[in-house]
């Protein structure tokens, strides 16, 4: 019975979310669009961060790489203008596989290390991409950034639905992983890599798979974000926000649980958006920070784990 109520509510939410652009004002639709982008990143972060317990500060690298690839194809490829609206699809078609291949390749150096070292080396990956962007001005525009021609901009509802689809996709991927043999392998690897190898699980290949899986929705999110913002600056698509916010969202919600990133996104972004409406005399960021302190200390390990009383 209760399961059915759950599914019914889920359906209700999905229908509600589908109706949002018709019901809510543009600012809220925009805010939700950004929420979906960050939710996608957070859910993707959790493939490594939750299932494999590798704190990955490099999720933004895939996002930024795909964003730049999209922009570069649309602005620099001589054949792009001839394709019309199709060019966007070509650009996305280049950006996503490129990012997936990149993810597969960087897995080789990145997975040489574990623990805090992994967090730092993945952060280093973002820093390296930043430097590459800054030092290839002919392609990427360097610190000037790149402008995507206005004819390619999606309308707000289009962006919204694309974001929604991505976020749902990313969460579904996680829930699929959790139920599949891949999930069992990840779980085994996270508990003991040695023992996992001893029962025939290839540690590297599985981690690499995780990284590639996690890179695809993030890459797609990067593409939409690039098209929506219209102009890419290195700091906007490869900056600290893109690097840290998904991690915080996943951790606030509960890393390692399918619903963790969802709850985290609702709470973190809800705070962010809600505080603007509250119009308090104290800077919003300060209150936002203090609330994160509260969440961190009073709901340790993430809200999902406290709710399901599985807190470790």
């Amino acid at each position, binding site marked *: 019975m209760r399961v059915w109520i759950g599914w019914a509510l889920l359906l209700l939410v999905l229908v509600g979310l589908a109706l949002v652009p018709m019901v809510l004002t543009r600012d809220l639709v925009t805010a939700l669009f950004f929420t979906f982008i960050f939710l996608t990143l957070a859910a993707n972060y959790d493939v490594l961060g939750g299932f494999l317990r590798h704190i990955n500060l490099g999720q933004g690298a895939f996002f930024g790489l795909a964003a730049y690839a999209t922009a570069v194809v649309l602005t620099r490829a001589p054949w792009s203008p001839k394709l019309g609206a199709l060019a966007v699809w070509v650009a996305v078609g280049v950006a996503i596989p490129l990012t997936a291949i990149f993810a597969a390749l960087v897995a080789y150096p990145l997975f040489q290390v574990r623990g805090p070292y992994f967090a730092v080396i993945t952060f280093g990956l973002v820093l390296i991409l930043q430097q590459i962007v800054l030092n290839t001005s002919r392609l990427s525009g360097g610190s000037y950034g790149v402008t995507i021609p206005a004819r390619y901009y999606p309308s707000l509802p289009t962006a919204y639905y694309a974001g929604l689809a991505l976020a749902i996709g990313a969460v579904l991927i996680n829930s699929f992983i959790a*139920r*599949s*043999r891949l999930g*069992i*392998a990840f*779980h*085994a690897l*996270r*508990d*003991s890599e*040695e*023992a*996992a*190898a*001893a*029962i*025939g*699980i*290839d*540690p590297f290949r599985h981690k690499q798979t995780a990284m590639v899986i996690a890179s695809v929705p993030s890459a797609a999110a990067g593409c939409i974000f690039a098209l929506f913002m219209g102009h890419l600056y290195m700091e906007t698509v490869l900056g600290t926000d893109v690097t840290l916010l998904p991690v915080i969202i996943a951790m606030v919600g509960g890393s390692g649980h399918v619903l963790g990133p969802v709850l985290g996104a609702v709470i973190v972004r809800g705070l962010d958006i809600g505080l603007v409406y509250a119009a308090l005399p104290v800077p919003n960021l300060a209150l936002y920070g203090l609330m994160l302190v509260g969440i961190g200390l009073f709901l340790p390990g993430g809200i999902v784990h406290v709710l399901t009383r599985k807190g470790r």
Partner: protein
Amino acid sequence: MPLLEVIHVSKTFGGLRALDGVNLSVERGETFGLIGPNGAGKTTLFNVISGFLQADEGQVRFHGHDLVGLRPHQICRRGVARTFQLVQPFSDMTVLDNVAAACLFGRHRIASIQGARERARHLLELVRLDAKASVPAGSLTLSERKRLEIVRALATGPDLLLLDEVMAGLTPAEGQEMGATIRHMQAEFHLTLLIIEHNVRLVTGLSHRMAVLNHGSMIAEGEPTEVVRHPEVIKAYLGERRSRGA
């Protein structure tokens, strides 16, 4: 042709020679006991055979094929399974899934999770852990963890099972029980066993043949009863005792 051949394997850590030209061969179907004082290089030898360490020189042959250069999961899939001296259960997973994982990814690579769990349940009965199937492995007692460790290795479908001090830390009664379980398993699955044990008495009772390792070198090999009477072996064990006392 022996099932496992270790040919002149050496391994050095820093300046320490952990294995020094070790030769060993294990015949199909036998139980081979490997004893030696602490630090003799027993676990290092296991790590070399199972691919966790690369030997500096020498060969490891299994079914006549060289294992050197293969990584642990590849060796597992060829039919060599091992346990760890310090047991390493997947502590957040259920006992059942610990074993099911081995069924999924071991040599037989059962395709469906459902099928793997069924097989795992059957195997758990064998070591009397079926009642604990749905608890997290982290909450088991030491003796239960040791049994889980063995059954998980078994679930990968090996020809050769390497047991690393599976009786250490158990009470004498538990040790006896473990011995019985091992014998039973060997008979049912036609296993070849290579056992490391610190406790000489227990392993003597189980083994068909035995060898003694000291300071990385093989000092004796043969019938269990002969081996334990070998003067070098006595010296090695007594010497160890003396140095401990000092």
